[in-house]
């Protein structure tokens, strides 16, 4: 692997202005990766600040209702700040601090990554600026206020489609503007090398814990892992330690929006083609001339026209499968999990829950299915109400 290639995918397709910054990041990362002091500090933060390990919860009622595989939920929603995003952010902000950076910037879609970054920056005493599409600041107003409470400055991005893709564009532009004292805390397993590797490594704690926990509870590995995929960080996090376990199916659930046969979709594997964008070669929703498509999903966190390069590679090799899940299915799953297990999932995670509802009944009762519940759904309540035709003041 050179320059972070995963098969045909990955690479470092960024302006020259940023090249020294990513090379410096790569050096620092490989240095601290094997530095016991750094690792101890990170583990301390993960355990005693973020609340790890997260529970592996047996969803007994859901299992009984679906009459198939035993369903476990990996409760990343119980982490501090309410999603898996904190795993990566604590690692990267700690790294930034060790590198002598005094300021962090980040993109955010649903706001989960922005909130996590603002949290870690507050804790570690770094300046923080968050870029968020204007449309997302409207549909996730609570998270905007949350970030501001944490001391971050939030910029509403008004270019392009005003969603996650444009937030990434604007954060990259800001990084070229001020690179010496600033680290870009990229939120997913995407972008130029070394980000897909760094984010995957910091998120792989999810799968490492699942492996231990499921062996402890069941004495065997699961038959399938389910996770939602936008850029793909929570999926990569749970998949990574199982890639070498051929008996475990790895299934990523993409946001199909109003359906993969409509233009209002964000399902990259289902509808995209090979391209090079946001620093990486991978699959993207785009037209025949390489213009990036204005994608759509009810979930701001999955509303992204690409997928991380390692996922693209896992798809090429057939090691992982990717399935589309529509807005309707995700909203139904959101409500279903709330009623059935008393757990309100993030609408992103609800995409994985939705596919679990389809898959579990086709599996045997002796089989095990683990769903990565990547975030909690408080932030989505008002949007789901709107989807159901009810107006709620946040």
């Amino acid at each position, binding site marked *: 692997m050179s320059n972070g290639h995963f098969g045909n995918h990955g690479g470092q397709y960024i302006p020259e202005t940023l090249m020294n910054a990513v090379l410096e990041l790569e050096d620092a990362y490989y240095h601290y990766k094997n530095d016991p002091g750094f690792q101890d500090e990170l583990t301390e933060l993960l355990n005693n600040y973020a609340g790890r390990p997260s529970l592996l919860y047996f969803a007994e009622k859901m299992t009984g209702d679906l009459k198939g595989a035993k369903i476990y939920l990996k409760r990343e929603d119980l982490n501090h700040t309410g999603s898996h995003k904190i795993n990566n952010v604590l690692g990267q902000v700690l790294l930034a601090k060790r590198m002598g950076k005094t300021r962090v910037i980040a993109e955010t879609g649903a706001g989960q990554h922005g909130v996590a970054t603002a949290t870690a920056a507050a804790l570690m005493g770094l300046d923080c600026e968050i870029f968020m599409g204007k449309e997302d600041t409207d549909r996730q107003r609570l998270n905007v206020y949350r970030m501001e409470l944490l001391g971050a400055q939030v910029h509403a991005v008004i*270019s392009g489609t005003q969603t996650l893709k444009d937030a990434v564009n604007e954060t990259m532009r800001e990084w070229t503007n001020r690179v010496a004292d600033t680290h870009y805390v990229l939120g997913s397993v995407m972008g130029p090398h070394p980000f897909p590797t760094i984010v995957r490594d910091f998120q792989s704690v999810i799968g490492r814990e699942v492996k231990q926990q499921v062996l402890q509870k069941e004495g065997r590995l699961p038959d399938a892992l389910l996770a939602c995929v936008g850029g793909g960080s929570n999926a990569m996090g749970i998949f990574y330690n199982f890639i070498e376990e051929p008996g475990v199916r790895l299934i990523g659930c993409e946001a199909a929006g109003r359906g993969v046969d409509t233009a209002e979709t964000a399902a990259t594997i289902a509808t995209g083609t090979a391209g090079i964008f946001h620093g990486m070669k991978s699959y993207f929703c785009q037209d025949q001339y390489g213009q990036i498509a204005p994608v759509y999903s009810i979930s701001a966190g999955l509303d992204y026209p690409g997928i991380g390069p390692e996922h693209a590679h896992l798809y090429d090799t057939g090691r992982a499968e990717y399935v589309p899940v529509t807005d309707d299915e995700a909203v139904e799953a959101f409500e279903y999990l709330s009623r059935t297990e008393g757990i309100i999932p993030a609408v992103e995670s609800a995409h994985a829950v939705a596919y679990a509802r389809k898959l579990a009944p086709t599996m045997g009762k002796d089989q095990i299915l683990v769903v990565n519940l990547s975030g909690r759904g408080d932030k989505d309540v008002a949007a789901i109400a709107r989807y159901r035709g009810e107006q709620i003041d946040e």
Partner: protein
Amino acid sequence: MNKLPQVFANGKAFIPFITAGDPELEVTEQLVYQMAEVGADLIELGIPFSDPIAEGPVIQEADNRALAAGTTTDKIFAMVARIRQCCQVPIAFMTYVNPIFTYGTERFMKNCREVGVYAVIVPDVPFEEKQELLPFCSTYEVDLISMIAPTSNRRIRKIASEAQGFIYCVSSLGVTGVRRELSNDVEQMIKLVKEVKDIPCAIGFGISTPEQARQMARLADGVIVGSAIVKIIGQYGADCVPHVVEYVRSMKNAIE
């Protein structure tokens, strides 16, 4: 035949940038003829991209206008072919890697060769990834222009030693756009390049006034101006041609 050497053969080169298809291709075609007429030494034609991450708001909006007008890579090739029937001004394409890759890199470079485009500038292909394009650039004799930036430091020697055509020196941090102040770091950057290789250097990013152009031309072999021109196009739309021509004339005079 590659016409890039002639760009820098007559004193300091003035290199205007416009986005093809902004506000429509007919206007672009007229702009090329008339900018060549008043002394543009090389014309940088932008192939619009939906998400130009190295551009500031002015050129982002130009890309949006061009795409909204239905501009495509095929239509741009057809326009350049038309231009070539009566005008031989050197042309370089400026675009992002995705429009090239998606079009098919070989097909893209082959078309460049056929219509007489002798260079491509691709800001999101750094030195480390140039093999993505270089093999086809070589086959069809299209120069892949290297960029150096104020953050390049020790990378400059490596980049310069393998550079072709000319070197695009990015004057300042950040994205494209008009700037009031320009740094003089670029003088040091160019000195480093020339130590390694005798290759023309053109400075871009932020230059808008004749005074700035004069100042930068003293340091380099050429001056690239984009956002200031695109701003005029944005202001006057389809009636922009005389205004742009006047501006290009004043800038060309300033550096002579």
